[in-house]
């Protein structure tokens, strides 16, 4: 009961955001659908006449459909950048197949006797198409549009990854932040939206053949109106921030920026995979980066000084379940070998190799281990004793768990399997406490603020001390979750606000306070 109240309270509290996300979501869905109908319908009609082209067109549309949606969005970024445009393009491609296929099927399955008698009475090709074939195929075509709509409502949640907004912002924020209410606040409306649109279209579909003629007029108009939600021009802003879904909900993130710095900045939500490049390409001005990210260097970004200390230290260390350490006493010495070996600049360099030079994390890890003389051949490949390593979904974590894999297999008789690409802190942490993985690399500041969430007083007493934070999380994780923080690896991968060096210099912004002052001057010119 309390859970439900909390969800309701959360939704009420966030109602502005929820409304704008829902409107964006409807807009994304409808505008892509509208384009897909505009393109898919004529294409379907065309291939119903040119049977030879049919298999090619349906084949290509079918292949597009099989591309995983997140990958399709990924392909769009180099072509179309970030924001609404690539999201609409990807959604359009997804909606295409059901519409083309159903138009084709609908028209080709119209009774030959009927079209022939239409010809026999002297109707020309277009009269037959508009008066006979399309009305009779309309129920099948509408079924295709329905399928496309439901697909698009679902896929549109992913648009949040490339700064196109929509209900995905809450969903991914909630996943990353261990916040069930936030996930539900995004998931429930998007599910309701899918059900509602599906239901409305089913009404059209069930309409009698007679009213089909009206449907084919009314439907495009409704789509156009819904699309206009998204076409409404937005205010141009001078400085645009792009933050990850996780950052949006963290105290050491957007919430802290608002509460401590009173920073009020136009913001879009974006995946960290594309955020740096978007900043480099002037599509974003301020991003929430990691201080050891290799692309910082590649894209010439600078970090803004956290002069009011909302970001605690984020020293990386292996987080392991205590029962695993007790069961395999040889594990901890093997993991500790990496302690103190990697400092900030080394980690940045390694990340750079993966993020920018596109080397494989396995190779980068192996090269490094060889260079440091830490690599040993695996002792056993057939061991029944398996350690499961998890990682979050960015380069640094991939590199680290590959190193740990080599260390464990080289120095013990244990075997390692890896579970890479776990979406966020919550997913990794839950996997660990639910005994689905045995360890993953975590950052002290994240453990402190995302999992433990101490009160303000406790926090203020330690937030700028590396050792105090480490000791606190070590003690609390052990007490509360029976998890052990091993020795830190050495580098501090801090959250930081970043800007392009050229822009920061020309605006003379060095600290977050500078940014805040610049923005408030912009908003209230003298």
């Amino acid at each position, binding site marked *: 009961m309390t859970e439900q109240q909390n969800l309701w309270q959360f939704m009420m509290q966030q109602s502005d955001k929820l409304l704008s996300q829902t409107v964006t979501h409807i807009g994304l869905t409808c505008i892509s659908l509208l384009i897909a109908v505009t393109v898919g319908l004529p294409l379907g009609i065309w291939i119903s006449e040119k049977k030879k082209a049919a298999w090619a067109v349906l084949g290509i549309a079918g292949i597009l459909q099989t591309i995983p949606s997140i990958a399709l969005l990924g392909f769009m970024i180099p072509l179309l950048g970030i924001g609404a445009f690539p999201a609409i393009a990807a959604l359009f491609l997804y909606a295409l197949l059901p519409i083309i296929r159903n138009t084709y099927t609908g028209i080709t399955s119209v009774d030959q006797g009927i079209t022939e008698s239409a010809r026999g*009475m*002297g109707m020309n090709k277009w009269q037959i198409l508009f008066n006979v074939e399309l009305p009779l195929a309309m129920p099948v075509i509408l079924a295709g549009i329905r399928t496309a709509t439901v697909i698009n409502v679902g896929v549109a949640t992913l648009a949040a990854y490339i700064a196109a907004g929509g209900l995905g912002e809450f969903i991914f924020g909630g996943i990353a932040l261990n916040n069930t209410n936030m996930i539900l606040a995004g998931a429930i409306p998007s599910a309701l939206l899918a059900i509602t649109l599906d239901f409305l279209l089913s009404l059209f579909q069930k309409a009698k053949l*007679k009213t089909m003629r009206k449907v084919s007029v009314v439907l495009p108009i409704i789509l156009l109106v819904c699309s206009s939600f998204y076409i409404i021009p937005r205010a141009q802003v001078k400085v645009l921030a792009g933050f990850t879904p996780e950052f949006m909900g963290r105290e050491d993130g957007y919430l802290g920026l608002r509460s401590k710095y009173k920073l009020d900045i136009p913001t879009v939500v974006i995946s960290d995979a594309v955020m740096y490049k978007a900043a480099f390409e002037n599509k974003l001005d301020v991003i929430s980066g990691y201080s050891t990210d290799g692309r910082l260097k590649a894209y010439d970004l600078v970090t803004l000084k956290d002069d009011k200390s909302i970001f605690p230290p984020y020293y990386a260390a292996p987080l392991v379940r205590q029962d695993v350490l007790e069961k395999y006493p040889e594990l901890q010495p093997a993991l500790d070998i990496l302690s103190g070996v990697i400092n900030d600049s080394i980690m940045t360099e390694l990340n750079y190799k993966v993020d920018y030079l596109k080397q494989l994390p396995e190779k980068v890890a192996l090269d490094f281990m060889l260079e440091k003389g830490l690599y040993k051949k695996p002792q056993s490949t057939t061991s029944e004793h398996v350690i499961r390593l998890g990682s979050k979904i960015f380069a640094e974590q991939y590199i680290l768990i590959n190193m740990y894999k080599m260390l464990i297999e080289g120095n013990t008789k244990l075997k390692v399997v890896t579970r890479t690409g776990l979406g966020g802190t919550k997913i990794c942490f839950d996997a660990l406490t639910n005994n689905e993985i045995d360890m993953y690399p975590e950052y002290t500041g994240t453990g402190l603020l995302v999992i433990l969430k101490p009160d303000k007083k406790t926090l203020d007493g330690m937030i700028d001390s590396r050792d105090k934070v480490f000791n606190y999380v070590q003690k609390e994780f052990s007490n509360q979750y029976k998890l052990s923080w091993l020795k830190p690896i050495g580098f501090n991968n801090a959250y930081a606000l970043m800007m392009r060096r050229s822009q920061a210099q020309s605006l003379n912004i060095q600290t977050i306070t500078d940014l805040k002052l610049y923005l408030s001057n912009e908003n209230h010119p003298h």
Partner: protein
Amino acid sequence: MIIAQNISKEFNGIHAVKNISFEVKEGQTMVFLGTSGCGKTTTLKMLNRLIEPSSGNITINGQDIFSSKPEILRRSIGYVSQNNGLFPHYTVAENIAVVPNLLGWDKEKIRTRSEALLEQLKLPVSEYANKYPDELSGGQKQRVAIARALVSDPPVLLMDEPFGALDPITRAGIRKEFQELPELKSKTIVLVTHDVQEAFELGDQICLMDKGVIVQTGTPSELIFNPTNDFSKSFFNHQRLQLELSALKFSKIWNELADAQPYSIASLNSTQSLWEGMELLSEKNQDKLCVKDEESNSLKEITIQTIQSVYLEIKRKR
């Protein structure tokens, strides 16, 4: 009215119709008869260019049918397709209005003409005009299809197995109605069927086809009594007696019949066949019936015995 000269149709190297010629006179009904795949439907569809002939000439009413656009040609020819071909999303009234709309008639003209036709076809407007084809029986659908083909009063009517989808009882009934329809009396009709009985009932001329060629053309009685080859002869063998009796009209044997009692009431017409006479005799369970000849305005009497003896006489002579 319709003259086809040396028309052929080839589909991917296979001859569906091979170099056939025929003529249909104005007001006549020409029936193309044959088994499936004999080329009869292809021949019919070439007349309104639903199928373009590979070679040959066709004129309708002196006009070369290839001189105008096919759509324009088709609007001037009534067409009843197999399985009625009604538009399921149009009401009866809308279905009938298709061709008039294509011809640009005004609404009032379409309405009055449709109503008149529907009444003729025993489909009261108030009850049927706003029904959809799904709500009609097979026979009613077929009547609507015929109305749709007749609405613009085209001089030529093409019918592709028009009664093929109906059960035998409905079929016989609607055929009768069809024959008696005043609208059809003056039409030049080309009809395709595989039903021999239907061909004999409806056809002034029958064109028997096999493997893409015309085997024999002639009146029903010519075909049944004077087959010119083995195919024609064997084609009708399994129902020869019935067909022969169907081919013989009372007008042909008028002189062999005895005069009826004065003031008798005629229940048959001299244009009807001996078969119909026998059917009626057995249906009414009567010994004799009276037949009327419109031309000479005379009445004659028939019995099973007279029909039998006249028939045997004719057979012996041939």
